[in-house]
């Protein structure tokens, strides 16, 4: 984890009100460790915070999940540029308020103030389980990244192939260009893919294998997945969203209520939590 100033490499619309922001990732940062949980590993489910405006306004940085990350390196084949591959990270963000409005104005080459990687990412699926990835709204970024990572793991024989489902109100809100082949698209109005919520889709879907749930999205969706996961006695890795100040576990600002009544910190205990333990009602 480190605060650093870097450079925007791309910033483009990917759906109505959604953009993908890409930026250079410093070469000496974020080498992926083998256990996938190392402090500097930008693993799926982990996040970073951006300064989204002036020096002190907004006073709070804005958190975003990695939607992609590639370390810098060298192509073994070399080439004109000596084979250098620049490191890059990305997020998919929704335009919500003043912070994201500012981020939308950034152009390639603009400076970007990043703090990360932060938080706990997704655990690996149990052997023999089918990873079911459910994304809604701003949850699409981290699930895309997780889908890609699990697909690579599956190709290497480390887990079963993941299935990604993306839910949205209507087709225009789905970042189709970013979705891997085979993604189940669900729209409330039926304008693309399955008509209904991802929860509806889930109810009618047979994963073949015992499922392992992964989800990120609005609280009602997260709660619906929790119900399905509970009924199937399946593990549920849920990435939560909560206002943050420090992002490092120091301020206790990002409290998430568990069904036990206890509070955990979204930034350091999460953002990935056991979805069966979270009090989703309190998050709504």
């Amino acid at each position, binding site marked *: 984890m480190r*605060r650093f100033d870097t450079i925007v490499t791309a910033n483009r619309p990917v759906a109505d009100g959604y953009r993908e922001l890409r930026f250079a990732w410093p070469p000496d940062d974020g080498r992926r460790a083998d256990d996938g949980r190392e402090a500097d590993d930008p693993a799926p489910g982990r996040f970073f915070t951006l300064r989204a405006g002036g020096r002190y306004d907004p006073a709070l*940085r804005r958190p975003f999940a990695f939607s992609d990350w590639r370390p810098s390196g060298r192509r073994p084949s070399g080439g004109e540029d000596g084979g250098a591959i620049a490191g890059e990270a990305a997020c998919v963000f929704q335009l919500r308020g003043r912070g994201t409005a500012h981020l939308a104005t950034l152009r390639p080459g603009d400076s970007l103030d990043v*703090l990360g990687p932060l938080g706990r990412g997704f655990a690996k699926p149990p052997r023999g389980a089918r990873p079911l990835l459910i994304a809604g709204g701003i949850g699409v970024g981290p699930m895309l990244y997780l889908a890609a990572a699990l697909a690579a793991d599956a190709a290497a024989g480390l887990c079963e192939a993941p299935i990604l489902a993306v839910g949205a109100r209507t087709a225009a809100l789905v970042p189709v260009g970013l979705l891997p082949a085979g993604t189940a698209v669900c729209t409330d109005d039926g304008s693309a893919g399955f008509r209904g919520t991802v929860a509806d889709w889930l109810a009618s879907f047979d994963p073949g294998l015992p499922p392992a749930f992964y989800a990120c999205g609005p609280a009602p969706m997260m709660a619906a997945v929790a119900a399905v996961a509970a009924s199937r006695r399946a593990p549920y890795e849920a990435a939560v969203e909560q206002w943050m100040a420090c992002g490092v576990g120091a*301020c206790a600002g990002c409290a998430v*209520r568990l069904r036990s009544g206890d*509070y955990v910190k979204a930034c350091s205990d999460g953002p990935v939590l056991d979805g069966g333990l979270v009090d989703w009602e*309190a998050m709504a």
Partner: protein
Amino acid sequence: MTDDRNLGVTIRGMTMPNPVGVASGAFGYGEEYEALVDLDALGAIYTKAVTPEPRPGNPAPRLADTPAGMLNSIGLANPGLDAFVADKLPFLRGRRCSVVVNVAGKTEDDYLRVVERLDGEAGVDGYEINVSCPNVAHGGLAFGTDPAQVERLTRRLADARSKAPGRPIIVKLSPNVTDITAVAKAAEAGGADALSCVNTLVGMVIDVKARRTVLAMGTGGLSGPAIRPVGVACVYKASRAVSIPVIGLGGIASADDALQYLLAGAVAVQVGTALFSRPEAPLEVLDGVRAFMEREGVGSVADIRKLLR
């Protein structure tokens, strides 16, 4: 070049290596920021509040974004006195910077329990008495707004300090009062060794779309650059009303901000909310204060205030 010893600030038996600390509640118990900030370069760490019992804190959401500031209603969430001593203090012990424990409670006895217990523990250099916490009810208003009660509490704490008599009692003042000098004088009369000034202002943000307050608790504490002019005015007034040292805070994000407080009459400063935006802010502040002192030929931090015209 100014010798770094001139950056030291002594309050009772505590000598902070430099005047720039990190404010209570913004820096946890230090450990959380270890990867981001060189703790040994700080003047002091003011811990998150410690209460006798563990406290889960307030319902969520606890944070809101405001123009050039933020609201918090953390609610003194902390692991309690025993867990603080067992789990948090060992990390803090032996840091080069001073360790000031922020003390809170529901009753005067709560405050006494924390100070008496910690007096027996090494690694604590001073106490910051959080009498300005909106959660400590007293006749419907926050505790720290009643001069008589502040004086009595301060006196009890100062008297109780037996095992570690060198540790200063720093009373942290609320800006939510009609006359901050009355509370400042009460703390001084009760035997406070220093004041810190200011805690947060009471504020509220309403989410118009959701038609409810953003904070689950309704109101919260306003901090950040937005309140800096209020903090500077409070320090200016308080430091002229008492003869004990005043530590300034509220919206400090840069050396210039800190120097406003030091010129207004503070002998040291704390950086709170700015840490969230820029964890290295306190070190940048320190560099800037050091550079100012060299440029202006000021021998000690406490002399900065003399430069004000």
